[in-house]
């Protein structure tokens, strides 16, 4: 049973548009929420992470929004570029050193 539910499974967005990926969790003990980005033929790489003491974190065109009461967090990719085409995984753990529970992944395709 997946502890972190991720949607949508896939997403097609035009260049310059906004990509939004949503994740939900049940375990209120989770307190570290990273996002990983995976390009074809490569392993995942950490993109951005957030802790529940903040509601939003921004790094460049990538923003995590966190809603503790709803037990949901989302990744927004602003001004999406073809180079952002990849699979994105949300994850959660208890403590930064805890085992990561990954979502199912979202394949994002940005069309020129």
């Amino acid at each position, binding site marked *: 049973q997946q502890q972190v539910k991720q949607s949508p499974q896939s997403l097609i967005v035009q260049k310059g548009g906004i990509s939004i990926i949503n994740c939900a969790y049940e375990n209120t003990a989770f307190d*570290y929420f990273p996002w990983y980005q995976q390009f074809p033929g*490569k*392993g995942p790489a*950490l993109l951005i*992470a957030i802790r529940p003491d903040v509601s939003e974190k921004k790094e460049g065109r990538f923003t995590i929004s966190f809603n503790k009461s709803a037990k949901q967090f989302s990744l927004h990719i602003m001004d999406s570029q073809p180079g952002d085409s990849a699979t994105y*995984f949300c994850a959660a753990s208890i403590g930064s050193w805890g085992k990561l529970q*990954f979502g*199912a992944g979202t394949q994002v395709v940005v069309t020129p």
Partner: protein
Amino acid sequence: DVKVTQSSRYLVKRTGEKVFLECVQDMDHENMFWYRQDPGLGLRLIYFSYDVKMKEKGDIPEGYSVSREKKERFSLILESASTNQTSMYLCASRGEGSTYEQYFGPGTRLTVT
């Protein structure tokens, strides 16, 4: 530059064979992990190791074992491969410094026929 390497990109084995997947990291990291990646299921943790000769089961350890004789090397063993172990296997490592990032290798696509 951080590097995690895996011994094979593609591997084809027969049912019942013993399979070894090797992972090496050059970052002097204490923690190493084995995941399998399947469409629609994301990454699921098989085993992890927090020190040489130390190991802990992850969420799906059945049918797998691991070995960590040296700090830089973490091996995943399929004692008797089965078709339901056909998957992408990813190794990762993580240090104990200020960053909690896991660094992943490129993966091994294992097909069991």
